């Protein structure tokens, strides 16, 4: 048992993985024996080629998948074994920006952000104020009555971020948040995320954008074929 790893870990780590493996199909591993810690307030980038397991790692952290092996501690809870419904309270403390945004198409921009507060039971008045402030921060306040499908890709991306941040999560996970955006827009999005990180939250962003890695890469975790091959400060990466 990797007890010694637990003992060595920084006491304020928000996320810890011990020998975590994930296998969707018997015999093949999407992730293999990952050991990893993310401290409070840390801003880390997760990189690697397509199919390396970035999305899988993020999904494990917010409890959308369960590890096939190993232990996973998130915000002080061991979620390796928790059942489907008991991850809900944990998810309310984690903001997630999904690769495909996962916006609610039949709801307005305002409602899409508001739902993150609805699930927490925030009263209507407070909710309105917080949603409006958040939309203002991402520059969507004028679009608040629109539906997501009428927004541009960059606007949808900002909406997804607004929803992830509105309940001030302790941990933000973003899956390729600049995926299909042009470089200017990518920087704009990353500035939003970096600003949130500097407010003390822990942030993990999956990306394979080298420009972003050079610019924001304080700590870069590199996955290849499901294995964590590098964990260090970027800049040297081609």
């Amino acid at each position, binding site marked *: 048992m990797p007890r010694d790893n637990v003992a060595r870990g920084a006491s304020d780590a928000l996320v810890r993985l011990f020998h975590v493996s994930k296998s969707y199909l018997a015999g093949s591993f999407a992730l293999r024996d990952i050991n990893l810690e993310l401290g409070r307030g840390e801003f880390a980038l997760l990189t690697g080629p397509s199919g390396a397991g970035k999305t899988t790692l993020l999904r494990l952290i917010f409890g959308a998948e369960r590890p096939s092996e190993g232990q996973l501690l998130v915000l002080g809870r061991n979620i390796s074994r928790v059942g489907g419904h008991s991850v809900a309270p944990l998810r309310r*403390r984690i903001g997630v920006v*999904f690769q495909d945004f996962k916006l609610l198409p*039949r709801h307005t921009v305002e409602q899409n952000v508001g739902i993150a507060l609805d699930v927490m*039971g*925030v009263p209507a008045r407070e909710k309105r104020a917080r949603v409006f402030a958040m939309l203002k921060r991402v520059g969507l306040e004028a679009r608040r009555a629109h539906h997501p499908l009428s927004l541009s890709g960059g606007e949808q991306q900002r909406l997804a971020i607004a929803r992830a941040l509105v309940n001030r999560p302790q941990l933000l996970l973003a899956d390729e948040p600049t995926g299909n955006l042009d470089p200017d827009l990518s920087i704009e999005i990353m500035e939003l995320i970096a600003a949130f990180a500097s407010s003390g939250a822990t942030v993990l962003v999956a990306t394979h954008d080298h420009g972003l890695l050079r610019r924001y890469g304080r700590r870069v975790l590199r996955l290849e074929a499901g294995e964590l091959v590098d964990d260090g400060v970027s800049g040297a990466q081609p």
Partner: protein
Amino acid sequence: MSLPFAQTALRTALSSMRASPVTSLVAVATIGLCLLLIGAFVLLVANMERLLDHFGEEIRVSVYLSEETDIEAQQQLAARARIAPGVLEVELLTREAALERFRQHQPEHATLFEGFGESPLPASLEILLAPEQRNEQGVAILVESLSGLPGIGELGYGHEWVSGYAHVVSLLYGAAVALCCVLLPATFLIVAGTIRLSLYARRDEIEIVRLIGGSRGFVASPLLLEGITCGACGGLLGLVLLYLCYRLLLPAFEGGLSLLIGTAEPVFLGIGAACGLIAAGALLGLLGATIALLQDELRS
């Protein structure tokens, strides 16, 4: 359930019903028709039972006293009957009183016994049994305890017809229960189907809500509310239909109905039973929605 939570749930439920008005209407109509049928049986049985109670109060067992008994002996027998098991009231009807009553009740034959110096009718004890004794067994017990006493003649009572009627009431009651057994599961399934369609229509949405931390209750409550709302609307519909039938169709069936409930004035469901019908609809809707959610949970 906190207020914002309930507001969100209600808003979601209503918008979901608005998004699929046809399925919602089918569910409402199904529950409405189901409850109309059940309500009609309840109404019929309630009216018949009411009549049965009414009969019960009218039933007197008449114990005829033989000619030789004098008034003193008759009073002693009445006193003896009062302490017989299951007896509520005993009225002594002397021969003169019997004649007087006959004349009052059948004035058209009032002259029939004229000219008799003395009443030709026998004296009798008119015995009212306690409600739980108003059946063959109760009468048998009474006969047992009175027969053999000197002066006791024959017993007469209109009991057979009443017990036949009670039998019809219990048959109808059984038919109503059987009807419920058939209708209720069918209705559950239709409501469950409606909720399942809502669930499918909102599947992606529900998945997203789960991913951002929506609890089980948060996801389920709009669907349960939708079931309850459909159910209560169905109950109301059933009640309105039942009332319309009662008002519009009843006069057409006057003849047939009088066979069943005699000359008694039919009454509609009381406020309690009417609310009960709506509540039954809401309960049906809630159970249907619960079934749909449980099925869904088992599958995923």
